[in-house]
């Protein structure tokens, strides 16, 4: 009698109410069918787009605010400090307070600034973020757009954020902003190459660019294990060059505080500054989730060969938790980079890209193609 509740608990987990955690299409398909049955297909599309948009908006804000908090905490722990600890338990509401403050701040109009471009620039950066976020597979069936060229699309879209950065720097009518934007643009363009080549290594291994299929192909083992040493090298190169692409330390010359005050968003204030700030953190989230999807299996649980019991336990953890865990692991590594290494000089940055990452990458692709040709991967 006393243990009845355990049986009901287990049946709740195996019952239909919890199934959607493991396959989100169980939740979305009935809703879609119901909408199709009640209203016309046009309104179905509109309603679905609005719902997905609102969900992404909330997700964007929550992830951005959490990442700002996480960065402050990680930085504090690395430096033997406590970090924010006053607002809410462990200071978790600190960034919400910051956001409220930024919302109330005055937006200062800049003299002789190109006001149209100046006002448009933060939104370009944010729109680019949303476009990249839409194509990422978050969990089984939780995927807004599943292109057959998904990874190519994300690369193409995320490289467009440099337009927003350049516009912000140019329209601010400030030398610091302009120099910061130019540096940022040069850096993003040159490190895009390394990111693309590192991802091509994995595309060769998977044989597809569709993100859902890439994740599905990792059911038997994550690509970082499947692809032997070339995949590990590609992973390291990807993490380094994506750190450079999102303009974070140690590659943050675009906003070298001692030289350029704050780089391309020096002249922005209030909520527009917050947009840039959030966009930087969401960029970090995007590159980390691409790394998790391409190298660490996305939402796919961790499986070891024929260990049935172990695999069952791993399958029990919902895919979304797997995805978030992997993404935040990569984010933690990127944060560790920032708070460990000193800032690079511009010539060191270019040396790293053109003399080390690019040649290694090219050789790595060659090795990977050879492996795939011979079928030596798992």
């Amino acid at each position, binding site marked *: 009698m006393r243990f009845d509740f355990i049986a009901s608990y287990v049946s709740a987990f195996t019952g239909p109410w919890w199934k959607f955690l493991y396959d989100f299409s169980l939740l979305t398909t009935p809703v879609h069918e119901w909408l199709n049955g009640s209203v016309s297909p046009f309104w179905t599309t509109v309603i679905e787009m609005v719902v997905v948009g609102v969900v992404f908006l909330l997700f964007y804000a929550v992830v951005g605010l959490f990442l700002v908090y996480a960065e402050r905490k990680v930085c504090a*722990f*690395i430096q*033997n*400090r406590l970090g924010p600890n006053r607002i809410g338990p462990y200071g978790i509401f600190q960034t919400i307070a910051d956001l409220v403050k930024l919302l109330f701040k005055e937006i200062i109009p800049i003299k002789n600034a190109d006001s149209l471009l100046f006002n448009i620039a933060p939104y370009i950066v944010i729109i680019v973020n949303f476009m990249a976020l839409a194509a990422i597979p978050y969990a089984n069936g939780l995927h807004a757009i599943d292109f057959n060229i998904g990874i190519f699309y994300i690369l193409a879209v995320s490289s467009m954020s440099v337009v927003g950065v350049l516009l912000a720097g140019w329209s601010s009518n400030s030398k610091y902003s302009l120099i910061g934007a130019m540096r940022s643009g040069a850096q993003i363009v040159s490190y895009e190459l390394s990111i693309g080549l590192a991802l091509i290594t994995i595309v060769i291994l998977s044989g597809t660019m569709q993100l859902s299929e890439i994740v599905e192909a990792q059911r038997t083992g994550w690509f970082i294990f499947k692809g032997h040493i070339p995949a590990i090298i590609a992973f390291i190169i990807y993490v380094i060059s994506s750190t450079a692409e999102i303009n974070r330390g140690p590659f943050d010359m675009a906003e070298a505080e001692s030289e350029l005050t704050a780089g391309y968003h020096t002249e922005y204030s209030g909520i527009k500054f917050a947009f840039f700030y959030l966009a930087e953190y969401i960029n970090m989230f995007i590159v980390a989730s691409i790394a998790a999807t391409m190298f660490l299996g996305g939402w796919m649980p961790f499986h070891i060969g024929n260990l049935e019991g172990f695999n069952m336990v791993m399958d029990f953890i919902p895919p979304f938790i797997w995805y978030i865990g992997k993404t935040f692991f990569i984010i933690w590594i990127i944060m*560790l980079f920032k708070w*460990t*290494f000193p800032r690079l000089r511009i010539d060191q940055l270019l040396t790293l890209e053109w003399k*080390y990452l690019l040649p290694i990458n090219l050789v790595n692709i060659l090795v990977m193609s050879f492996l795939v040709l011979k079928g030596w991967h798992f």
Partner: protein
Amino acid sequence: MRSIIEYLKEIFNGVLSLLRGMRVTAGYFFRPSEIVTQKYPNNRKDLVMFERFKGEVVMPHNESNEHKCTGCGICEINCPNGTIEVISKTIVTEDGKKKRAIDRHIYRLGMCTFCALCVKTCPSNALAFSQKFEHAVFDRASLIKQLNKPGSQLMKGVE
């Protein structure tokens, strides 16, 4: 061939040194017990300051209300910003000699820079630093303190 080996060696050494640095920072990250930050107003009751902390200048007195200050005025001369003022008086000792003794030792906390020149140069070690650091008061006059307690006397054997 040799240059290729050197190139690879350079990469290997570079990555190794980077990993060494990351091990240090990640080590700190995973040992939160080493955090040095004090949650000050919350732990006010059991906060222990360090022995070397320079809170304010005090004149230690023993149980029978005796201090070591002879009123020589060296602290007043050494003080770079006029924080200390020694007002001395003349007393007659038991064997009929006239002797200088301290009347009031004035210490202006508001002007003190905690340079410790007075404490260091005192020939009879009459001054010391206390660990008290909550100096805020509502009235500027209460920052002027008299260090020798009322009715105190020179300790026996201190000249």
